[in-house]
């Protein structure tokens, strides 16, 4: 049959179910792709032998009633995987082999899938271009000098290059949606609390959420259904009935009210991003949705707020890397304190150190009120903006990113310009809301651009439905040539 790896997850599942392809042949096809795509540097670790064993087990005793029957999946290297090295893109975890499995990956395996390998990412998910990874830059399959976005850059790149049929990432300030936008793929950050954080290397605990990254909206619904659910082991997990997102997917959006926030038109935004937003509005309007102008007045304060809250939480979470219980330990250091200091200095990269220092400072005695407490108050205002708007609308449409993928090295010398990448994605994390980035077109260089749909808390089904209707009428096709193999 034709190359199965360029099909959607949903199509692949159908082909497995109808026995057009075995799990073993499917797995072999991905292994072949991965081996010829080393240039992209998407994988930190591969688990091919283990995957082939699992595929064989499935083929010997198939269960086609599962959501992900016999499907090999690669996941971001931020999810702890039992007996498989988990680095979080950091030198400080270069030898860490978890003795437990994260809840979301366990959920995926319980639905019939198995691990193909671990995908590169920004160190501790801190970055917007995958350039902070200790394991090297990841290349965007869209072009050989382009970043794949970040922090889930290995995930977006591997997905777009057909190295995994779908994948999962984590999103603290845009780390699923921005890389999805840069690679012409779909990425969803769920409502805070929908997917368990247990077993995910922590960055900023009040913002972190795991979510699916896929080629189509339908695939996104299948993955979300497979990975989400209440977990006792996560104290902020939401206890609610499991939804059947894929079964309930509908493309009728007639009468839905879509908010268009005026604050998302920012200075120096390329004309193409604005044009694409217009195109998105027109598509939804033609499908019977009603466009409503709204205001989210505190939008411009979201990023400054984020750069207090996230580093503060990170500095606290990353205090655990002390070279004692797991991970890297420096050979230097005469006494305990010096051992800590050297271990952390050698183990962490520059961006992670910067953020730990910011966080330590904003939480330190005498500065807490001026920074951290202030940020928590502004976070309240940002959340209130959304709450007020959602009394009169069903969802919000915005661009996903202020630009398309940029070149490697272009923004590494200026942290603030790098941070501005997340200007449209960060507010959603601060408010705990679900948001979807879906491919919508390309800029004049031919690089993909995405649009973002923001929903009310726990309204994933609605934004998936809008995305589904949009996808059918948008006509976007990801034209990636396999120049790397």
């Amino acid at each position, binding site marked *: 049959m034709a190359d199965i790896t360029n099909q959607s997850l949903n199509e692949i599942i159908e082909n497995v179910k109808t026995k057009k392809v075995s799990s073993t042949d499917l797995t072999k096809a991905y292994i072949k792709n991965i081996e010829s795509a080393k240039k992209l540097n998407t994988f930190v670790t591969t688990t091919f032998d283990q995957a082939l064993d699992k595929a064989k087990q499935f083929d010997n005793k198939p269960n086609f009633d599962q959501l992900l029957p016999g499907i090999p999946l690669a996941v971001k290297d931020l999810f702890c995987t039992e007996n498989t090295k988990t680095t979080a893109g950091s030198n400080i975890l270069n*030898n*860490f*082999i978890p*003795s437990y499995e994260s809840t979301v990956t366990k959920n995926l395996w319980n639905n019939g899938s198995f691990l193909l390998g671990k995908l590169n990412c920004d160190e501790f998910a801190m970055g917007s271009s995958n350039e902070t990874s200790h394991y090297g830059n990841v290349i965007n399959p869209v072009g050989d000098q382009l970043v794949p976005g970040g922090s889930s850059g290995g995930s977006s790149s591997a997905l777009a290059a057909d190295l995994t049929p779908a994948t999962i990432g984590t999103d603290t300030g845009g780390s699923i949606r921005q890389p999805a936008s840069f690679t012409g793929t779909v990425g969803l950050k769920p409502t*805070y*609390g929908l997917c368990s954080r247990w077993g995910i290397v922590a960055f900023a605990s*009040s913002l972190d959420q795991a979510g699916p990254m896929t080629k189509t909206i339908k695939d996104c619904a299948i993955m979300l259904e497979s990975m989400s659910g209440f977990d*006792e082991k996560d*104290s*902020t997990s939401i206890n609610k009935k499991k939804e059947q997102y894929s079964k309930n997917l509908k493309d009728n959006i007639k009468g839905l009210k879509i908010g268009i926030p005026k604050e998302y038109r920012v200075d120096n935004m390329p004309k193409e991003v604005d044009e694409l937003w217009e195109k998105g509005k027109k598509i939804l309007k033609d499908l019977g949705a009603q466009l409503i102008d709204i205001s989210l007045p*505190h939008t*411009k*304060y979201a*990023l*400054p707020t984020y*750069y*207090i809250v996230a580093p503060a939480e990170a*500095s606290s979470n990353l*205090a655990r890397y*002390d*070279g*004692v*219980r*797991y*991970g*890297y*330990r420096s050979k230097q250091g*005469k*006494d*305990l*304190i*010096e*051992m800590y*200091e*050297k271990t*952390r200095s050698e183990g962490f990269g520059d961006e992670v*150190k*910067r953020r730990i*220092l910011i966080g*330590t*400072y904003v939480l*330190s005695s005498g500065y807490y009120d001026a*920074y951290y*407490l*202030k*940020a*928590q*108050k*502004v*976070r*309240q*205002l940002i*959340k209130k903006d959304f709450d007020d708007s959602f009394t009169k609308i069903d969802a919000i449409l915005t661009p996903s990113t202020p630009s398309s993928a940029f070149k490697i090295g272009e923004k590494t010398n*200026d*942290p*603030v310009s790098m*941070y501005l990448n997340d200007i449209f994605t960060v507010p959603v994390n*601060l*408010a*705990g809301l679900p948001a979807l980035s879906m491919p919508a077109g390309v800029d004049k260089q031919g690089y993909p651009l995405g649009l973002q749909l923001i929903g009310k808390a726990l309204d994933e089904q609605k934004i998936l439905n809008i995305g589904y209707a949009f996808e059918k009428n948008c006509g976007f096709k990801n034209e990636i040539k396999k120049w790397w193999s």
Partner: protein
Amino acid sequence: MSLDKEKIKHVAKLARISVDDAKVESLTKDLNSIFKFIEQLNELNTDKVEPLTSILNQSLRSRKDEISDGKIREKVLKNSPKENEEFFVVPKVVE
């Protein structure tokens, strides 16, 4: 406000990260530009705003105080950079 080199060395000490003198210069520049960006928040009057401490409309669950795990010393010690059979080993603390 601006951060000087001494302040940064002090914060690095608090964070238990040793910073080379050679790096303090660029770190000072980067952190000051980030704080300039962060301090936009001072434009807002937030006197009457309650800080947001949780975005969930639920309080944290408590569970029964029961042992649900244990007897996994080997697993716990497995990833330690230095251990003997029962303990994590660190450089000498007490003289």
